[in-house]
């Protein structure tokens, strides 16, 4: 027997698959969190400004203007000039490109390598797991900034080496975060079913276990991107960042710090820029975590 459809009822919605529904719900929850939305807006603005730096920047970031040395903010130079007379606003825009590039490249690679290590260790278990995680613990025994310092000093300061250093400090936490859920997921029935069907370990790990732990890795990625930008700026401030005259935010603060008594804006503007980006990423990370783990939901 069939039930006749109510002619007044709205047309049925297209059925969503389980995963699509989950993603839609997560997006809705994320959008409902106003603070995270503010974070997204700030971060997108910074990314757009960085990408459009060659179009927006009023001056060449490397152009020296000796007559304008250490001048304060003016109509022509919105944020003033540094000790070489270079335009701080233009350097800030170009510096954003480098900070973001180093952060994204370092955390992107740490995410891929760390997750692969954690996934493999958790999936294999036993002695392999013990040895890998012991090695990760040794790396975790150093404070991240100290490890970064030593690695950059060892390899020499360059964009590529900064990416390697920051990435190496971030790999162990990603391995840990990927390993923990893998241990749980690999015991579930569907993984057992995959094995029974004769799927290879690699296929099971990448196609069946990874999607189940991806959300936690992504949340951690957004929070670590904030850390990476902070660490890059810190290393540049110590003098182990990208070599001058390339503008980086940490390097600009370092240069400004030499004249802190007379021209504080040299350090303050790039300092506020770092704060803004790190803050926006932390807002996004917090919102993502709330969506994924309702237990820690802040609202």
């Amino acid at each position: 027997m069939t039930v006749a459809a109510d002619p007044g009822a709205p047309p049925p919605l297209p059925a969503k698959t389980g995963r699509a529904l989950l993603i839609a719900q997560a997006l809705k929850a994320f959008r409902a969190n106003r603070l995270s939305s503010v974070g997204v807006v700030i971060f997108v603005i910074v990314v757009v400004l960085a990408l459009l730096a060659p179009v927006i920047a009023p001056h060449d970031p490397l152009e020296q203007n000796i007559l304008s040395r250490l001048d304060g903010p003016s109509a022509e130079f919105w944020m003033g000039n540094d000790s070489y007379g270079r335009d701080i606003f233009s350097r800030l825009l170009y510096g954003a490109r480098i900070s973001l590039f180093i952060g994204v490249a370092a955390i992107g690679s740490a995410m891929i390598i760390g997750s692969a290590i954690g996934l493999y260790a958790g999936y294999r278990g036993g002695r392999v797991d013990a040895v890998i995680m012991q090695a990760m613990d040794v790396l975790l025994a150093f404070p991240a900034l100290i490890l970064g310092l030593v690695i950059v000093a060892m390899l020499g300061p360059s964009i590529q080496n900064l990416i390697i250093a920051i990435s190496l400090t971030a790999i162990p936490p990603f391995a840990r975060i990927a390993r923990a859920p893998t241990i749980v997921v690999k015991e579930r029935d569907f993984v057992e079913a995959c094995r029974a069907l004769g799927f290879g370990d690699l296929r099971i790990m990448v196609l069946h276990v990874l999607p189940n732990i991806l959300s936690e890795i992504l949340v951690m990625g957004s929070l670590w991107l904030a850390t990476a930008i902070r660490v890059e700026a810190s290393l540049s401030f110590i003098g182990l960042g990208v070599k001058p005259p390339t503008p980086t935010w940490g390097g600009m603060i370092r240069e400004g710090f030499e004249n802190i008594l007379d021209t504080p804006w040299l350090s303050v503007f790039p300092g506020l820029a770092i704060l803004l980006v790190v803050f926006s990423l932390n807002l996004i990370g917090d919102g993502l975590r709330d969506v994924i783990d309702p237990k820690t939901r802040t609202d």
Partner: protein
Amino acid sequence: MLAYVARRLFFALPTLLAVMTLVFVLVRIVPGDPAQTILGDQASQEAIMALRERLGLNRPLWEQYVDFLQSAITGDWGASMVTGQPVLGEIANVLPYTIDLTVASLILGAVVGIPLGVWSALHRNRLIDYVTRIGSLLGLSFPAFVSAILLLLIFSIYLNWFPVISAGDRSDPLERLENLALPAINLGLIMAAYITRVTRSSMLNVLGEDYIRTAQAKGLPHRSIIWIHALRNALIPVVTVVGLYLGILIGNSVLTEIVFNRPGLGKLIVGALGQRDYTMLQGLMVIYTFIIIIVNLLTDLTYGLIDPRVKYS
């Protein structure tokens, strides 16, 4: 408990050995010849060779490694390649400054962070909660050197309340406190941001527990329910986070020491890296690892103080 401490320290030995090996390898692939760095660009080849010989840099790597381990175990950490002073002595000279800074920041972080976290949890989703949450997120977004520069500008340069250079005499208690104040406020407020967040979420979890409802039903005073019954149970995650973030605190102390020109392990390691002072670097890295191991142990021991149900086995 003593047996537990001894066992934990024993199990930390392989980690310490692995770290020492890593440190040994790391400092030896640092580009640049330390003998050249010490003597400068103008030095003759003979002088460089003589110094390499004296520093033992010409010996096979494995010999240097065995020597390094032997010396580390017997407490002879060699002399700084730059100053010629014993490494342990130089570290011991500045360690009290770093300990002062770390402990003061930790106390400030707990004194500000715990009450703020509890307050925020009790006023969940009200204005005060939003302000605290945004404030604490802002606090942990501050790179330590940016906040240090802002504090230096406001309180030392414009208001002239604190010295610009925080490297004073440690034996004079007043001077010690004056020099410690601004660097400790800098790191303490960042620490407070972390502690506020974890205290808030931990308190929210505990406040939903049945025993809190029972305490309220029994008519216990609100103050004692919050500060004695709830907070004590909410503190374990707080201690865990404090232990974890102590590593960040130690890293941040490097930046704070540079901005405030304060002696400490951080300034020593930056100097050692710049001058390729291998022996000093080795010593410092081992000290850092040792500090982290001790902090982890103290964190675990603190659990037992807070919660008598925690057994050490």
